[in-house]
């Protein structure tokens, strides 16, 4: 294991061909994220933050550049290994939750555990533990339609944490939530970060960005600034 670097991006570009126009979403990103960091990504819409996040989450592949995740070049992974990485190393959280609407909270959290073939008793215990972690033990049998937005996002976090991943990737996790629910979500991330998980989060909300340890500004597909946030606020102020 090298000096704690979990994510290493060098020269990452991503071009889209939408008809005649070539969209350059990312134009050469160099970025290292260490284990245990709490990183906020900010930038105007269309700057390429989400594209970057999707590439980090192995949901999308870059046009060029190298991405090394936990000492393994992602480009060299086969589809099965990629599935396994998404399943075990990365916990991805979406702005619109992406919960399966027909499944209960319990079943949603159980899903990644089923994909990784975790046996019954262990699975049950982990689902329960993760639901309690986000404070939703009593909502296990509720379907997403019976939950509030904040609760849905907490279920999504419990689901992302199911296989105990190295890193939590959250693409505007509070974008669809009121500020109170948003604060709760950030508090959960901070707790997770304290237990050693890396957290990478996109946000528009400067109050939330202020709580990250490191802030990366993206503009026009390039990193504009990458700063340590020394005077950050604590969740418990």
């Amino acid at each position, binding site marked *: 294991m090298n000096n704690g670097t979990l994510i290493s991006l060098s020269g990452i570009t991503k071009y889209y061909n939408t008809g005649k126009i070539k969209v350059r979403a990312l134009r050469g990103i160099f970025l290292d994220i260490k284990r245990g960091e709490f990183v906020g990504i900010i930038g105007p819409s269309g700057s390429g933050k989400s594209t970057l996040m*999707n590439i980090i*989450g192995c*949901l*999308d*592949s870059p046009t060029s550049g190298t991405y090394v995740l936990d000492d393994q070049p992602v480009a060299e992974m086969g*589809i*099965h290994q990629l*599935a*396994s*990485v*998404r*399943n*075990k190393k990365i916990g*991805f959280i*979406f702005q619109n939750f*992406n919960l*399966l*609407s*027909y*499944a209960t909270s319990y*079943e949603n959290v159980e*899903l*990644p555990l*089923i*994909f*990784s*073939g975790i*046996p019954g008793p262990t699975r049950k215990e982990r689902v329960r533990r993760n639901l309690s972690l986000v404070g939703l033990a009593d909502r296990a049998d509720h379907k997403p339609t019976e939950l509030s937005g904040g609760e849905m996002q907490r279920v999504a976090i419990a*689901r992302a944490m199911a*296989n105990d991943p190295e890193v939590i990737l959250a693409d505007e996790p509070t974008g669809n939530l009121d500020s109170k629910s948003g604060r709760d979500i950030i508090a959960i991330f901070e707790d997770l970060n304290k237990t050693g998980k890396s957290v990478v989060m996109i946000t528009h909300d400067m109050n939330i960005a202020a709580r990250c340890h490191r802030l990366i500004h993206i503009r026009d597909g390039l990193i504009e600034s990458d700063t340590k946030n020394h005077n950050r606020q604590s969740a418990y102020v």
Partner: protein
Amino acid sequence: MKILTYKLFLFLKLIGREFKAQKLRMSLTVLAITWGTISITLLMAFSVGLETQMNKSNRGLGDGIVIVCGGQTTMPYQGLPQGRRIMFRTESGVIDLIKSRVSGIDMVAGEFLRWGQTVEYDRKQLNKLICGTYPEYETMRAHYAKEGGRFINQKDIELKRRVVYVGTAVARELFGEDVNPVGEIIRISGVPFTVIGVMIEKLQDSNYHGSDEDYLVIPASTYLLMYGDPFFDNIVYKVKDGVDSKIVEKDLFRVLGAKYRFDSSDDNALWTWDTVEGAKIFKKVFLGIKIFMWFIGGMTLFIAGIGVANIMYVAVRERTREIGTKMALGARGGQIILQFMTEAMAISLVGGLLGIIISLAVTALFRMLPMEGSLELLSDPTVNWPVALITVGTLSFIGFAAGFFPARKAASINPVEALRYE
């Protein structure tokens, strides 16, 4: 092995969960396949049944027989004028002549007819046609007897027995329903006869002296003793299998022309009715009907196929986001494709099975229903298994394909594209 079983269990658990979530769509797809299978299977079942019934009723008169009776000459011949009536004198040995000289003949027998004879039993009195003939009639004219009875035989002819074989309708009129009259004595023109058999119920779509169920048959020798008829009314023969009945008929004109002295090319000298020729035409007509049925069946299959394809296709597209979510959570593409395939297979199996079961039930019901007259033609639908299986197979395959390709596509692209899909 244990791990594999466990994975299978987890897989089925997921599928079960989604089945519950997609109840309406699943039921609709099942319904589409069931309906398609039923329509085509029943269409073909009735087509087959219709053919069997029409064949049967076609054979009611007899299978591959030719009926001959004397006509009137229209050509002068060897100094004889035209307009002579040709009649088959009983004592002339015409039957033996035909049997020995006309090639290609399997069986031949003469027949005497006398209408309006009184038939009495108990206090009932009817006026019926009496037919005197020979044992060959049994097979030639499908004069089979119900269980416990028989047709007239050679011994009856030799001993000039007073025995009678009764048509089904006559038996009903004389003795009532569901009575076995074998052994009863009836009087025909005042002379007592013993009933030896009652005709089986049979379908008959053509006749030349009334329906077979409506007259009584006695031995020709007994008939001659009673009525002394000097001429055969008709001669009936059956050609050997694989022999062209037209050629046999020509030969018959030649042989009888020499005997009764008429020009063998004089078509009116003998009146003939070739049911073999009729059966050939019937076969052609039915081939047309069958082609038509297959066409309709094919069209129905096509429409059902489009329905199934549409539902499956929409279903997978609708769930593209869901596929993206699962991929993001670490599902393998193969798992997702396998899931859709299992769903499609389960749906087609259930739909197909339901369709076949319902078709079987409907055909069974039709076979139980009492149907008379022309409806009787619908009374024997038979499920054509290859058709049923091909239908289910085709629909399943279409459902499979329509589900497989979009599912494979959704599972092979980057999850983010599937997630972006609205």
